[in-house]
Structure formats: structure tokens, C-alpha cells
């Protein structure tokens, strides 16, 4: 079923919308959630919560593309779930991915804590626009979808090692970009 038809079902308040959403994108959402919470049972719950959130927000929202819209909801709910869990038990792709980014952090700028997420998102978008499409996809798959290197390698047709090298370069490039934008270099 096309996304537009699914959204139409949401607007008609037909529960079939959730079923169609599950059929079309269920495995994608569960994989994304699992990459964060590292537990299939919790991932299932997060995805169900995301469906409920979608049900509450559509309408009035009329998301296009639909998959990205729900992916973000799944991501946010899964992150909340992740942070609720005991830190000692953290052992997911998300943890490792964020450790990578931590290493790419910029200087201890006292104002960085005040930077709003939305502002940073715009900065990241500007940075993404400077990248070739393949690097952009690799970055998004790793830090938005929290994919494992092996999954990214399959998707973009590179070896895992090549993905690792590219991600390192992208992080370094991002660090330079952020510093430049903040006027620190």
C-alpha cells in the first residue's frame, strides 16, 4: 500500500492504518529500536508506542515521507527507554555509536551546552549537504538509524573496514566544520 493510502486511513480513523504501517515498515522500525534498546521485547513495545503516537498526531499531521516521520518517533521513544535503563546494562549499537561521536567532540566550549538541539540539527544538516551522497547515507545510517557497520556495508556496497574508515573521516570533517562555524578556527 502506498504511503498516501496509509495516511488516508489515519485520516479516516481506521485502525487498518496501523496494520498497514506494520506490514510495510514494521521490521524497519523494530530494527531501529533494537539498535538502541538492545532487547527485542522492549523494541516491540517502543514500536507499539510509536504507532500510538502516530495515531494521536495523524491527523492533523500529514507526514511526507511517512517512514522518516515514524522512524523519528520510534527513535525518540527508544532513546527514552534507553535512558531509563540501568547504565550498567547498556550494551547496544547506540552506545557504541555515541562513544564514537564523543571522541569527535569539539573543544570544551563553555557555550556549547547552551546550543539548542534544533540549532545543532541545522548545523548538522548544513554539514551533511557538504558530503557526497554515499557519505551522507553512511552517516545517517550510523547515527540516525544506529545501524551496525555490517548493515551499512551491505547497503552501500562497501567493506566494513571501508565504512569504518569513511566514518572516521566524516567525524573529523564534522569536527572541523563545527569549529569553523563556531569561529574557533
Amino acid at each position, binding site marked *: 500500500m502506498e504511503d498516501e493510502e496509509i495516511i488516508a486511513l489515519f485520516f479516516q480513523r481506521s485502525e487498518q492504518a496501523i496494520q498497514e504501517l506494520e506490514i510495510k515498515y514494521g521490521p524497519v522500525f523494530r530494527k531501529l529500536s533494537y539498535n538502541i534498546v538492545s532487547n527485542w521485547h522492549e523494541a516491540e513495545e517502543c514500536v507499539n508506542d510509536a504507532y500510538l503516537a502516530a495515531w494521536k498526531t495523524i491527523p492533523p499531521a500529514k507526514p511526507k515521507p511517512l517512514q522518516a516521520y515514524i522512524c523519528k518517533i520510534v527513535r525518540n521513544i527508544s532513546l527514552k527507554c534507553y535512558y531509563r535503563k540501568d547504565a550498567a546494562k547498556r550494551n547496544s549499537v547506540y552506545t557504541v555509536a555515541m562513544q564514537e561521536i564523543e571522541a569527535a567532540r569539539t573543544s570544551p566550549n563553555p557555550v*556549547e551546552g547552551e*546550543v539548542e538541539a534544533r540549532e*545543532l540539527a541545522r548545523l548538522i544538516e548544513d554539514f551533511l549537504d557538504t558530503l557526497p551522497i554515499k557519505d551522507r547515507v553512511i552517516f545517517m545510517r550510523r547515527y540516525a538509524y544506529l545501524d551496525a557497520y555490517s548493515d551499512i556495508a551491505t547497503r552501500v556496497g562497501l567493506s566494513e573496514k571501508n565504512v569504518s574508515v569513511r566514518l572516521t573521516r566524516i567525524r573529523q570533517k564534522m569536527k572541523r566544520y563545527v569549529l569553523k562555524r563556531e569561529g574557533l578556527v
Partner: protein
Amino acid sequence: MKTSLFSQAMSEVRDKYYEEAASFECQRTTHTWIKWSATAVCLAVLVLVVFSMQTEYLHQQGVTQPDKPNDVIANPSNHDTSPQTIAIQISMSDIFLNDIDIKATADAARIWYDPQLYRDIIWDKVAIINYYGKDLTPPYVPDGLLAAPGNGAAQVITDKDGNIVEDTVWLGFYHAYDEDGSPKLTEDATARKGFSITVSKIGLLHDCIYLLPENEIKTSDINGVEVTFGYRAMPYGPYDAETHEPSGYYDLYVAEFVCDDIEYQILANQIKAEEVVKVVCSIIYGEEVAIQ
């Protein structure tokens, strides 16, 4: 930037970037044929080597080569008239272990059954035995592995007339389990340790993809049953920031075969090749088999 802020910001990144990453499919380069040609040449050399080795083995039955620690003993052909069990030693790394494609771990598409037309049924252990004609628990399970809590039951699907349309039964044997029954990951390598058996009479949804084309995949003959073994060294992170090498690799084996009209697929993580073969042999022979 703080990781939490970065993470939050990634959730705020516009949809078009998510969409682009979701819909991106790599274009195969025109040089793919070079890779396959090279593979074909290597295979041709392998076949020659294997053929000469097999001939030699047939003249040296029962002799173990000390320099091949990974070798597997498979049963000889049924034409063997010797009263003793004579083993042909075969190098798994050269012949029977087909390299598994990286896509083997990709998500398999799920078939969705319309609840208006189909219904789910839970089978208990007795129902499973009645359907398959035997207990599916392998006679041999490596030490330290425990049966999964869900092994005694299976969810199958029938149509409205009661005809079974989906009969897959899954059994797990892993070193430890979480509270919800899912296998625990090991601490050193972030992966499961143990194996699962998936069976079906109707037919499994094969999601194991080998590097070689289907007509070039090698099988192992175990008591007349053609078994396809697959292997992949699975890397696990975190990856080194300088060298980009993974923290290490663990062994992933797959075994696929049909025995007594039942289709089997065994997926093993972090256990030895010999143990995988012992599990397979025990299913085929119906009892534990010694592997030399």
C-alpha cells in the same frame, strides 16, 4: 558537543535526510564481473585440489592428518561394506564450508497472513512430536548450552479449513537467557553463544546467502544426507579509531539439510565447527556420533 545533545539533534534533522538514507540502494559497479571471474578461477583451482585430496583420502581411510585441526569427519558413502565406521576426513575450510555473504544477516521479509483468512495456533511439545513424528531436540547438545524456555511450544498458522500453511518450529540452545527468554549476549564478543534449529516440512524461508552461486555451493555427505555448511567470521565492535580493525571475530556457522522429509536450518554462533557437525550428525543418525 554532548552525546545526548547530538542524539537529540539527530532526531531533529529534517525528514529528507532520513528518507534518503532509508531509500538508498548501492549501484553495482560494472567491475563486478572481475570479482566473480576471480572467484571462478579460485574455485576451479580448489576443485582440482579437492579432487586430488579426496582421491588420496580414499586410499588412506582412517588416517588423521595432524596438521588439520579444523578437519571434520563425515560418514563415508553408503556403498561402504566395512563393518566398522570408516571416516573420510574432509577439510571444512577448503570444501564444505561455503563462505556466507554479508547479506546473510539482513532482515528477511515476513509473510503476513490475513487474520480474516488464517489463524494462529499454539502447539505444545506433544503436538510438535505428532506433526514431525519425532522429538526435534538433537541427541547431542554441546556442554554449557541450555534449551531455550520457548522450546516446548511453537506458533503455527492454519487456514480456515485447518490446513497448515506455516509449520516452522524454532528451538534454541544458548549459554544463558534474559528474563524474557531471549538469548543473552556474551561479554567478550557482543553476540549470542549457542545454536538454533529451525525446521519445517512445508519449506523454510531460506535467508542464508552464500558468496558462490547456488550451483557451485559444496555439500557434505553425512550418511546419505547432503548437508550444506556455511561459515563466516563475524566481526564485532567497537572498531579501533586508528586502524579501524574490529575488536575481534567470532565464528558463525550455518548448516542446511533435509532429513526424513524435514527441512533443517541450524545457525550457530561462537561454537566450534566440530560441535556444529556433531549436532548435525546426531540429528541425522538419531544418536550422538563421535567425531575424530
